[in-house]
């Protein structure tokens, strides 16, 4: 159900501005407007989402069953969960002609880990996810808000362990993180473990701890005279000390829901025994609509505002002139396009740079290579020269030798010739002498 809601007085005043009152001379019939509105809502059906936060074993599921007089699904969970998970179940309930789509979200494993520092994170994430889903739907171009199944958490029942002493630090930390995101209704679980006197002290301690830590819990509204009184009284009974039970015991001639102990029976719906009736009254019968409204107008708006600001949306330009939606989107689009182009440009530049560098590198390598070979060439030239020199010297030697040889041969030849002529002479002489 979607309502253009705001503080009632605000609208009446705003609407009244510029409107003059005129008397009516008869019954016009617009006093049926509230009925028309109610009929529409009834036809449309209602929806309500409750988040139960609390350690394992504090009776969250039992309390839900007791509150809504029915057995919801689910097995009791063990203590060995590795992290905090949120399990949600949706039920369609009907009472007379009113249809209610109820979603119960349970925190599974809350408080079971040794290190609980991040316990609240999955809860916050879950709540934000529902806000985000709604925001996305709201921002769509073609949207169907009036048939949207609202999954935003309307009420968070925070289960406090019945220690009787004070809040655990996990409780304070968690509630502090949640108080700006959801309507928190703190309740003391399994309160049949605490005696009445201890309970009063416990409640006072809890309330003062919440105040001193700046935790904003949900206050039942007191601006509507019809319910102002009961709401303000109930505000004083917070946190509600509850007991849940789905078992029935016969008391007198009636069957009542109760927990049976050897020393007596705790009746769930007995206001002397616990605040269950108060919780039911406040949560369901009196303020359910207000819880939904607060979620939409306060918690969701805060989320939305932060999200849009994060994305860079503003309501006014630097000159404080209001932007029209068109201008805002166009500006955003231009900015966005510019960003993309810049990124593209940067990437290109980077590549150009790399190419340059690589080119220089390769050029350097090429230069080195050439230098190397120039050196080798030079070496080679030197060697060649040496070789040439050696060759030359050999040739010189060869030539020298040849000359020597030739000279010697010549000499030899001459000598031989002389010798031979001498020999010849001798031979001739001998010959000649021989004849004698």
């Amino acid at each position, binding site marked *: 159900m979607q309502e253009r809601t*705001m503080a*009632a007085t605000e*609208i*009446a005043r*705003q609407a*009244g501005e510029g*409107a*003059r009152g*005129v*008397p*009516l*001379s008869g019954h*016009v*019939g*617009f006093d049926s*407007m*509230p009925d*028309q509105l*109610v009929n*529409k809502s*009834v036809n449309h059906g209602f929806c*309500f989402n409750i988040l139960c936060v609390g350690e394992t074993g504090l009776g969250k599921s039992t309390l839900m069953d007791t509150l809504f007089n*029915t057995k919801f699904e689910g097995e009791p969970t063990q203590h060995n969960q590795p992290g905090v998970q949120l399990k949600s179940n949706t039920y*369609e*309930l*009907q*009472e*007379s002609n*009113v249809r*209610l789509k109820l979603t119960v979200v349970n925190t599974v494993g809350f408080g079971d880990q040794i290190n609980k520092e991040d316990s609240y994170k999955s809860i916050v994430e879950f709540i934000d996810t529902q806000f985000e889903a709604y925001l996305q739907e709201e*921002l*769509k*171009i*073609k949207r169907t808000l009036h048939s949207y199944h609202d999954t935003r958490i309307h009420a968070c029942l925070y289960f406090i362990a019945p220690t009787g002493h004070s809040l655990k630090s996990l409780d304070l930390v968690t509630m502090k993180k949640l108080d700006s995101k959801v309507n928190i209704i703190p309740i003391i679980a399994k309160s049949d473990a605490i005696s009445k006197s201890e309970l009063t002290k416990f409640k006072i301690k809890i309330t003062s701890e919440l105040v001193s830590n700046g935790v904003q819990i949900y206050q039942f509204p007191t601006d509507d005279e019809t319910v102002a009184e009961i709401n303000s009284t109930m505000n004083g009974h917070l946190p509600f000390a509850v007991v849940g039970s789905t078992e029935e015991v016969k008391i007198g001639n009636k069957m009542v829901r109760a927990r049976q102990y050897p020393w007596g029976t705790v009746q769930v719906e007995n206001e002397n025994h616990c605040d269950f009736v108060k919780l*039911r009254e406040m949560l*369901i019968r*009196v*303020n*359910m*609509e207000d819880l939904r409204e607060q979620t939409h107008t306060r918690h969701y708006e805060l989320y939305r*505002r932060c999200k849009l600001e994060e994305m860079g949306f503003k*309501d006014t330009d630097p000159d404080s002139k209001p932007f029209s*939606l*068109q201008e*805002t*989107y*166009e500006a*955003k*689009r231009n900015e966005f396009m510019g960003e993309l182009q810049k*990124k593209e440009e940067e990437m290109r530049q980077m*590549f150009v740079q790399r190419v340059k560098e*690589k080119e220089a590198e390769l050029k350097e390598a*090429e230069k080195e290579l050439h230098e190397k070979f120039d050196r080798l060439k030079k070496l080679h030239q030197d060697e060649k020269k040496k*070789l040439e020199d*050696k060759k030359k010297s050999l040739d010189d030697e*060869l030539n020298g*030798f040849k000359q020597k040889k030739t000279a010697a041969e010549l000499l030899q030849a001459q000598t031989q010739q002389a*010798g031979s002529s001498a020999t010849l002479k001798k031979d001739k002489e*001998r010959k000649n002498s*021989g004849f004698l």
Partner: protein
Amino acid sequence: MKNLEGYVGFANLPNQVYRKSVKRGFEFTLMVVGESGLGKSTLINSLFLTDLYSKDYPGPSQRIKKTVQVEQSKVLIKEGGVQLTLTIVDTPGFGDAVDNSNCWQPVINYIDSKFEDFLNAESRVNRRQMPDNRVHCCLYFIAPSGHGLKPLDIEFMKRLHDKVNVIPLIAKADTLTPEECQLFKKQIMKEIQEHKIKIYEFPDTEDDEDSKLIRKIKEKMPLAVVGSNVVIEVNGRKVRGRQYPWGVAEVENGEHCDFTVLRNMLIRTHMQDLKDVTNNVHYENYRSKKLAAVTCNGVDATKNKGQLTKSPLAQMEEERREHVMKMKKMETEMEQVFEMKVKEKKQKLKDSEAELERRHEQMKKNLEAQYKELEEKRHQFEEEKANWETQQRILEQQKLDASKTMEKNKKKGKIF
């Protein structure tokens, strides 16, 4: 559907809603369009049983207009603890000129500007008050000619049926006899269907009673109304009516006209629905057109059909993702080209190096061969030289020996 045993109490939700709505108060904007003199102001006064237009606040009919104006009057009325801020939007000058082309434009502009205001208010980062000044209903007054719709009637309704809930009325119905009125209504409805004009339709209900009622109303459309500011006594009753020599036409008499039907429908039973249809249909229509124009920037509408389900921001996110993918692809491609080129260049370098190596090797080999050759030559030479030298030595020795022998012989004398 779960059955609950015992009373839980959320059946009280409607009461909570009731309570809150009364506290908030209600708003409604009603527009009346028609030529002057059709009794629009009188009808408004009759509907709301008040002198909306009086001596102090004269209705537009008293003022003479040359062009179409759009004027609004806001009044606050209370009844039974319920507060209603009623805005009446009048259009003096409509259809009164000689040339009435585009006389609907100021009306369209007004409706659109209210949508625009609402859209901007809804889209702000800091949203606070969001008064609903959108036009929830437009009563269109048809002159009781008895014949059919005028071209202006058709034109106007065609242009406005997508922007506002149009309820056509036959004005000054006391000038038509019941038979004439029946025929007139039939004719008008026929023409409305022919021109595919979408007038306000009553929503279906599951309730049988209500369904019967709605069917009866539908049969009477368009409603023929009579308005009056004057209270007359008829048979001891005080009634609003028009006094004629031949009798009194009573405004609230169902046999005289359909005024009561109109009032009941407009105010007592369907006021909320008129607001809902305005919000869920007409406004959303306007908004999606407006946002589509902003996001798609004049790109072909059919191409972007699938994108209309997203918000402009989601659209931008999508575009950003597409762009990132495109860039990645481009990056990979560029990277590939780069690598390839580098590889090429490196290969070239390598080849060039190999070539140079090879040449160098060859030259070296060449040189080595030459060296070897030289070595051999030298070796040969050395050998030859050594041989020759040995030979020479032998010869020398021989010579020496020979000369010695000769000497000896000489000494021996030439004794022969």
